[in-house]
């Protein structure tokens, strides 16, 4: 794959209720990324936005973000999935050879809309949506139970992931305040309220307000803009069947496939050895284990045995992952930004030593039906 570089990024501080305008947030993120790269509005040649009409309460909602999102009198298109999917679209725009700078931004403000109700619109209107038993809350419970039953994993194994991510979030200044907890214990997680048994509230990446933006440029351009680009060396993307009842919820076949494609493209033969940092979009703590296993970081059912702490054998979600803040349509994009920070040595307070190669993932759908993963490398 031709080299495409990440040349700038910006993420707003995440809040459970930001109490300021979404459009201000979008402008802050996009302008912040442009400023970081030392560029001007006129340098933007294409914009890919990532929002969701249901989350925005409007249709073709990107027509309202033209000015704040850098799309004014520019080429612009929208992705209605996760921000990580928007990065794939932006990457394709750059690889087309027609664009010198792509802005990718994504985010939403669930403090202003009923998040779980809107997610119900993902379900089949002719079957499951009628009774609403299948939704993002219950599917989390099914997925964790399936993982525990299949591999004999314990609730403690899962709680450990939540503890790590809350502790890491405490080091991440942009994390949601409610997720920052350096004193949290496994017992705290297990004793928190039931979300969907066996998932408890503290295992959940709770939706919050936030927007993030990223800049991509082709190699030549990237080297003109920055001395410290991060290269996208591989990307893979796949999705599993729609109905939960058709799938093995204890594994992620789609992430396995996505990882295989991405690692092949990046020339990575042993991800467990070669990857230094992984920023994975885990909707719930147990998904970090399922996705890690799918990416080959551990055998199936053995995800909990990885030392995934900051500077452990493979640092997973040093930023705190999605548990540190989960702004719908931004979460996967933030994973890519966090991985880029690690490779540029800019993850102050939670920097992984000598991070050279990273993966970052995004997802959509119940039980991570659809997964996308990027391989990123630092240096030029």
């Amino acid at each position, binding site marked *: 794959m031709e080299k495409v570089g990440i040349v700038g990024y910006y993420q707003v501080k995440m809040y459970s*209720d*930001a*109490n*300021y305008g979404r459009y201000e947030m979008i402008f802050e993120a996009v302008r912040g990324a442009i400023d970081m790269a030392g560029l001007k509005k006129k340098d933007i040649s294409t914009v890919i936005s990532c929002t969701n009409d249901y989350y925005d*309460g409007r249709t073709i909602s990107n027509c309202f973000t033209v000015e704040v999102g850098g799309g004014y009198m520019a080429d612009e298109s929208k992705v209605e999935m996760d921000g990580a999917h928007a990065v794939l679209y932006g990457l394709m725009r750059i690889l087309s050879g027609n664009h010198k700078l792509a802005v990718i931004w994504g985010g939403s403000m669930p403090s*202003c809309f*009923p*998040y*779980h*109700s809107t997610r*119900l619109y993902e379900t089949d*209107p*002719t*079957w*499951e949506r*009628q*009774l*609403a*038993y*299948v*939704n993002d*809350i*219950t599917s989390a*419970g*099914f997925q964790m*139970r*399936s993982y525990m*039953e299949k591999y004999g994993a314990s609730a403690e194994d899962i709680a450990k992931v939540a503890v790590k991510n809350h502790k890491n979030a405490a080091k991440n200044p942009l994390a949601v305040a409610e997720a920052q907890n350096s004193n949290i214990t496994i017992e705290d997680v297990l004793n928190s*309220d*039931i*979300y*969907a*048994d*066996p*998932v408890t509230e503290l295992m959940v990446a709770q939706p919050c307000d936030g927007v993030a933006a990223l800049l991509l440029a082709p190699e030549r351009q990237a080297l003109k803009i920055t001395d410290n680009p991060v290269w996208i060396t591989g990307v893979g993307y796949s999705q599993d*069947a729609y*109905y*939960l*009842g*058709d799938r093995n*919820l204890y594994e992620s076949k789609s992430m396995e496939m996505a990882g295989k494609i991405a690692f092949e493209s990046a020339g990575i033969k042993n991800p467990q050895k070669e990857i230094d940092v992984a920023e994975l979009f885990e909707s719930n703590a147990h998904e970090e284990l399922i996705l890690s296993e799918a990416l080959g970081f551990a055998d199936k059912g053995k995800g909990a045995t990885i030392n995934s702490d900051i500077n452990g054998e493979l640092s997973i979600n040093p930023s705190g992952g999605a548990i540190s803040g989960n702004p719908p349509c931004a979460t996967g994009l933030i994973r890519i930004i966090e991985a880029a920070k690690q490779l540029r040595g800019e993850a102050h307070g939670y920097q992984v030593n000598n991070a050279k190669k990273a993966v970052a993932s995004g997802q959509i759908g119940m039980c991570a039906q659809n997964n996308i993963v990027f391989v990123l490398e630092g240096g030029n």
Partner: protein
Amino acid sequence: MSEDKVIVANRGLVRADFNFWVGRYLDKFYDNLENKKVIGNKCTKCGAVFVPPRKVCGECNVVIPLEENWVDLPDTGTVVNYTITPYRINDRTLRKAKNLLLGMVQIDGSNTSIVYRLLDLEPSEVKIGMKVKIDWAEKPKGDPSDIKGFVKV
């Protein structure tokens, strides 16, 4: 950030109710539910039996003809997964006192599972692998609510 949050709510300004055409496969399925019968359909290639029935097997990428490969199934099945939640999806701010117990149930003779309530059971009684049967609605209407839930056999 300001101290006060001024909100303009969208209440009743727009109302767009959708009618979804269920398609010929689900239509046949719902006609059978109305008569308290479960049917599925079988992939012509891999032999997987789907509940609810569908036109295409994703794994094999083949069409299952509408006219054939229907399978009559019993109203019994196995609990393959379950969860318990105090939330009702429309209102997560309000934790309802009563927990909702939901199971993924594989109807005997099928390869997929469906999500319904597990009725007349305490959460502590639920075991994966447990045999259950459909508790039918008194007056079936030919829609998903014809199955009230599953009860222990």
